[in-house]
C-alpha cells in the first residue's frame, strides 16, 4: 500500500529560528507569492495535500499568555483565505486550512469551506482546531476562559474544561457536516415550465441544537463538489482521539517510535469511527542536520509535540516505511525550515519512496477525497440516491 503524504505549512517553518536561516524568506511571510510558491512546490511533489496553520491569537511559546519575544515570528494571514488564493493557481493538490471552532460560527465556517471546495473543484479539507487560550476568548468577549496548564490534564477542573472544548468542537463539526448535506446534489433544477430554480424538497433544515449553539439551515451554499470536504484532526491523547474518531476523516497522531505508533493506532482503532478514519503521523523534519544545529545555537528553544527527525532523506524514508508497518497510513511532515525542508522532501525524500513503490508518481484523482481513497460522501438527507 502506498503512503499518503502531506506537508504542514506554518510561517517560516517549525523551528522558532527558521525565519533567521539564510534560505528563509522572512520578509515575505505576508506576501501571497510566498504561499503560492510553497503550495506549488508541494504540488510538484504530487503530495496529497498541504495544511496551513492558523490561530485566533498571536504565536506564543507559553500557553498562559504571550511571550513578548521579538525574535520569533508573530502574525498570520487567515489560513482559509490563503488556501482560497492558492486554489485557482493549482490543479490537484488538496488544501487544508486550520480553522478554529471555539469562537467561530459553524454557519460561516461551513460556507467558507464549501466555497474553498468550489474554488478548488473538490480539493478542500479542514483542520478544526480547539482554542483553549484565555487570550483568544478575550478577542471575542463572549466568554471568559480559565488559564489552564495543559500538562496538568489530570486536574479535574482542567480535564472538564478540555472535555467541554472538544464537545463543542464535535458539535461544530456536526453542524458543519449537516450544512454541507443540507442541499441534495440535484437540488438545482431550473425547471422553466414551473418557473422553479430549485426543488425545495431537496433543501433541508439541519435543525442542529446543542449545548453551545443551534443552527437552523439550510446552508446558503449548495453542496460542495466533494459533498463532504475532508475533515482532519490533530490528536495527542484520549479526548482528542475520541473527537477525531467521531468527527474526522483523517487523524494526525504523534508517535515517538514504531512501537508507540502501533500502540496509538490500536487505541485509535478501538474507538468507534463515524467515518473511514485514516491514521497519519506527524513528524517534524530537518533534512540538513548542520542547518538544524545552526538554528539551535541561535534559538535553543525548539520543542515539538511531534517526533523530530534530523538527518538525510534516506533515513527519513526508512522511518516512514517502518512506521507504516505499525499501521500508519500516511504522514504529515512539518518542514523545520521553509522552503528548504519542503524542497528537500520533494526532491530528496520522494524519489526514494517512489523507488520503493511507496508513493505515487502522478495524481490519479482530481479531488482530495480521491487522493485519499475515501468513498464518495453519501448525503444524510438524500432519499433518492442523490449521493455525489
Amino acid at each position: 500500500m502506498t503512503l499518503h503524504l502531506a506537508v504542514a505549512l506554518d510561517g517560516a517553518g517549525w523551528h522558532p529560528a527558521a525565519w533567521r536561516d539564510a534560505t528563509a524568506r522572512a520578509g515575505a511571510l505576508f506576501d501571497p507569492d510566498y504561499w503560492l510558491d510553497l503550495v506549488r512546490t508541494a504540488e510538484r511533489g504530487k503530495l496529497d495535500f498541504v495544511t496551513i496553520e492558523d490561530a485566533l491569537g498571536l504565536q506564543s511559546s507559553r500557553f498562559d499568555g504571550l511571550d513578548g519575544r521579538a525574535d520569533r515570528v508573530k502574525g498570520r494571514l487567515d489560513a482559509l483565505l490563503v488556501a482560497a488564493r492558492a486554489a485557482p493557481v493549482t490543479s490537484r493538490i488538496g488544501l487544508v486550512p486550520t480553522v478554529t471552532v471555539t469562537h467561530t460560527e459553524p454557519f460561516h465556517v461551513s460556507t467558507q469551506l464549501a466555497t474553498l471546495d468550489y474554488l478548488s473543484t473538490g480539493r478542500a479539507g479542514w483542520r478544526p482546531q480547539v482554542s483553549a487560550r484565555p487570550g483568544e476568548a478575550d478577542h471575542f468577549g463572549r466568554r471568559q476562559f480559565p488559564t489552564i496548564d495543559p500538562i496538568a490534564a489530570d486536574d479535574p477542573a482542567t480535564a472538564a474544561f478540555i472535555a467541554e472544548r472538544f464537545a463543542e468542537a464535535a458539535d461544530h463539526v456536526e453542524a458543519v457536516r449537516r450544512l454541507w448535506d443540507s442541499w441534495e446534489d440535484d437540488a438545482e433544477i431550473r425547471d422553466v415550465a414551473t418557473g422553479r430554480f430549485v426543488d425545495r424538497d431537496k433543501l433541508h433544515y439541519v435543525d442542529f441544537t446543542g449545548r453551545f449553539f443551534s443552527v437552523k439551515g439550510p446552508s446558503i451554499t449548495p453542496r460542495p463538489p466533494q459533498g463532504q470536504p475532508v475533515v482532519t484532526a490533530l490528536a495527542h491523547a484520549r479526548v482528542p482521539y475520541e473527537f477525531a474518531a467521531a468527527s474526522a476523516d483523517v487523524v494526525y497522531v504523534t508517535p515517538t517510535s514504531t512501537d508507540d505508533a502501533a500502540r496509538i493506532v490500536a487505541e485509535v482503532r478501538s474507538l468507534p469511527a463515524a467515518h473511514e478514519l485514516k491514521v497519519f503521523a506527524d513528524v517534524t523534519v530537518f533534512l540538513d542536520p548542520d542547518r538544524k544545529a545552526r538554528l539551535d545555537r541561535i534559538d535553543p528553544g525548539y520543542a515539538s509535540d511531534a517526533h523530530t527527525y534530523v538527518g538525510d532523506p534516506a533515513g527519513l524514508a526508512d522511518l516512514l516505511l517502518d512506521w507504516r508497518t505499525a499501521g500508519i497510513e500516511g504522514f504529515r511532515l512539518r518542514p523545520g525550515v521553509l522552503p528548504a525542508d519542503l524542497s528537500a522532501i520533494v526532491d530528496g525524500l520522494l524519489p526514494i519512496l517512489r523507488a520503493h513503490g511507496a508513493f505515487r508518481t502522478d495524481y490519479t484523482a482530481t479531488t482530495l477525497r480521491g487522493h485519499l481513497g475515501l468513498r464518495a460522501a453519501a448525503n444524510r438527507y438524500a432519499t433518492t440516491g442523490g449521493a455525489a
Partner: protein
Amino acid sequence: MKQIILAAHFPGVNNTTVWSDPASGSQIAFDSFARFARTAERGKFDFFFLAEGLRLREQRGLIHDLDVVGRPDSVTLLAGLAAVTSHLGLAATVNATYNEPYELARKLASLDHLTGGRAGWNVVTTSDAFTGENFRRGGYLERADRYTRAAEVLRTARELWDTWPADELVADAAAGVFARHGDPGAFSHTGQHVEIHGHFTVPRSPQGRPLIIQAGDSDPGREFAARDADAIFSRHGTLEAGKAFYADVKGRMAAYGRHPDELKILPASTFVLGDTEAEARDKAHHIRRQQVSPQTAILLLEQLWNKDLSDHDPDGPLPAFDPVADDDSIIKGRTRLFDDHVATAREWRAMAEAKNLGIRDLIIEVTGRQTFIGTPATVAATLDEFVQNDAADGFILVPHIVPGGLDDFVDTVVPLLQERGVFRADYATSTLRGHLGLEV
C-alpha cells in the same frame, strides 16, 4: 469633468437575475465568477461586487424557489478571484450583526494582503430573528440598534487595522528582530456592543483599511454613511431621485468634518443595449417577461398584499380587496419593499384598470424597469449626464445574466465613456482606494 466610477455586481438571488435563458450559466461554479470578473477588469472597472444573504428566503413559510438560490461565501470567493485578476477591486458584502469584529477584521485585512490592496467591504446589518436562527448570537437585534452595532463593529475593525504600525515588521535575521514589539497588535475596545481586548494578528495591509461601502437607506443608514463610509450602494437610480439622495447624504458630511468627495454615491443600475432605441426597448421588455414569470408575478403580488394569492390567475385581474395590514411579513430574509401597502395596492389597481393589464403585465409594468435602456451612445451619454449633474459618482451595474451579462457593456459602452474622457483608459493605480481617488 468628473470621472465615472464603475462596479460590476455579480447578479444573484432575486428576480433581476434571469436563470431560464439559454445563455445563463452556473451561479456557483468558480469559472462563472472568474469569467465575469475578468470581463470587468478588461473594461477597467473599479471593482467587482458581491451581495450576501445569510438565510435562504422564505415566502408563506416555504423556501423561495423561483429565483436563483445559493451563493458562495463572499470573502472566500474574493480571495480566489485575486488569483485571476490583477487590478480590479474586490468588494464583498459582509454582515455586521452576525460576525464578530475580531474575526471580520482579520478576514478583511488578510484579503487586503492577498489582493495586494484591492479589498472592499459593504457593511450591512440585519435585525431579524429569522436570520439569527443560523448563528450563535441568534435572537433579535432591535431595529434601532442595528446601526449602532454596525458603527461600533466598523470602529472596532478600524482600531484593529491600525494596531500594527507600517514599520512594525523588521525581519532582521542578524539582529534577531522579527517584529519591533515582541507582541504587536495590542488593542482594547469597550463599548455598548463590543467589549474585547488582546492582540491583532495581521500586519498593516496595503490599503491600511479596505474600501468601506454602505447600502442602507433609512435616516440612520444615511447618517452612518456620511460619517463612516467611502461609498454608498444606493437604490436611487433615476436622475431626480439620484440628485436628491446625493445632495442629502453629501450634505450630512460636513457635520463629521468630511469633504463631499470622500464619499462616492453609486446607485445600483441595470441596463439594456440595442443597435437602435426600438431594439433596446424590445429587448428590455423581453427581459422583463423573463424576470417576471407567471409564478413570480403572483409571488411579488403576495409581497404587497401580504397574503397567499396562489389561487389567482397571473393573467387575470388584481385582487379586489385591500392588502392585509400585518407586521408579520409574508416574506422573510429580504428587506421590506413597500412603505404603504394599501396605497400602493390602490395605485396598482387603478393602473391595471386604466391600461387593462392582468396581474403579470401589471407587475412587469411597475417593478424592475431597467435603469438605462438604449444604444451604447445614448446609454454612455446618460451615464455621463447623471454623473456630471451629481445624481451619482458612478454606478454599480447589475447585469441580468451570468457570466456574459457584462460583455456588451464592456465592448460598446466603455470605449464611448473613454472617448468622452470620463473613464480611465487603463488603471493608474494598483489599489481599490487608489482607483476611487481616495486616500490610501
